[in-house]
């Protein structure tokens, strides 16, 4: 399964490198989102300062949506995804691979956004340990939930389910936990972060598990 995963991840990342979507398009978009937030919430630094954790993660979530859309579109064109199924790749592996590729791109974007938050919102990144731990766990959660969501959205073309309605909000808890954990980290009270980190870890495990087990079904329905 992990062989398949690395194979698929490698393929997706190569496609991304080829089309330079992440570096040339999503990344500037990410920075832009920060700017727009700053716009939307008055130039009153008070808000920006307090909200910076939340805004950071919101930006990440929006990038997730874009990255995942792209990752799904790649498989729809010329039925490439069907080709992978025909090759007999393990669905779990395919899921992991695509999620890993998305996660890799998100990680890159988070570094960028982190820098952006520091420069634009004047946030000080206290307690890097907590922040990084949060980032890792949250990224896994987002990438997996997103990849699963993409599969559903793809299969939506055929059977008109209302699944997205149920599935999209799974991102919300991750966002909440990540935000709270970062707020704790930024405020320097790492102890508060622990419980949130545990929650994030739980989500990550859950979504990985659900994805690995359920992706086959989602795939076959499309």
């Amino acid at each position: 399964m992990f062989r398949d995963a690395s194979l698929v991840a490698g393929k997706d990342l190569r496609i991304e490198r080829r089309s330079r979507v992440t570096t040339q398009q999503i990344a500037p978009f990410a920075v832009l989102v920060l700017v727009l937030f700053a716009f939307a919430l008055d130039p009153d630094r008070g808000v920006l300062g307090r909200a910076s954790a939340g805004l950071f993660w919101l930006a990440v979530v929006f990038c997730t949506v874009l990255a995942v859309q792209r990752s799904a579109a790649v498989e729809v064109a010329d039925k490439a995804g069907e080709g992978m199924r025909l090759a007999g790749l393990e669905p779990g592996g395919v899921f992991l691979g695509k999620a890993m590729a998305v996660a890799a791109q998100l990680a890159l974007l988070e570094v960028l956004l982190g820098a952006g938050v520091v420069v634009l919102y004047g946030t000080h990144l206290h307690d890097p340990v907590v922040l990084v731990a949060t980032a890792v766990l949250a990224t896994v959660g987002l990438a997996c939930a997103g990849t699963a969501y993409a599969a559903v959205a793809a299969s939506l073309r055929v059977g008109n389910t209302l699944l997205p309605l149920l599935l999209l909000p799974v991102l919300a808890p991750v966002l909440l936990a990540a935000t709270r954990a970062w707020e704790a980290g930024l405020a320097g009270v790492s102890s508060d972060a622990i419980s949130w980190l545990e929650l994030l870890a739980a989500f990550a495990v859950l979504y990985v598990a659900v994805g690995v087990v359920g992706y086959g079904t989602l795939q076959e329905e499309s």
Partner: protein
Amino acid sequence: MKSVRVLGALAVVTLTGTVVLGLGLPATYEQRTYSRMLALHPPLAWTAYVAFGVTAAASILYLWPRTRRARFDAVAAASAELGVLFTGLTLITGSLWGRPTWGVWWTWDARLTTTALMFVIYLGYLAQRGLADTAAARAKRSAMIAVMAVIVVPINHMSVEWWRTLHQGRSLASLKPGSELDGDFIAAMLLGFLAMTLTYVWLLVMRTKVIEAEADLEEDALADAIAARRQEALAT
């Protein structure tokens, strides 16, 4: 060719002049020596405006079928690159100035934000120019984008009026004898503007030549490609 060298010389002279005059500026009470930025920062910003204006104009000339020349596309591209450069310098000098005066490198002031926006928009313009495509296609598409993008300039210029802001008002626009800016500040600012503009024009001319040279190289490459393609016929 000679004229270009003259242009370059003039640019250098005026630039040095600006520096001298700028350093000569008296240190004002509230700003101390930082007020000398006045000789640099606004001129940079205005030159950026000019550059983007030129890009838009050249683009319109390209889009208009009668006046369509590959050169206008080259000019548009070169001017946009320089505009981004000058905008970047504006941002840098601005935040260098902001640190001592406002106590922050950056704040969500309208003027600052719209400037940043201007920067991003034209980065986007250059990014899409980078994508592989046939010359004509790239030229037309870019021209369209340039025409749409240029509205950010007036927005930026008016932003200080439209939004309450920390940033200086349009003092020159509302300049009258005995206004708060005193004589040699204005002189420095104007000389600086002249210097920047000359530098800009000089760089523009040279950069345009380079871009056109690159285009010629592409032409030669095409000739070879055509020959190779014709060979395929013999193969079958």
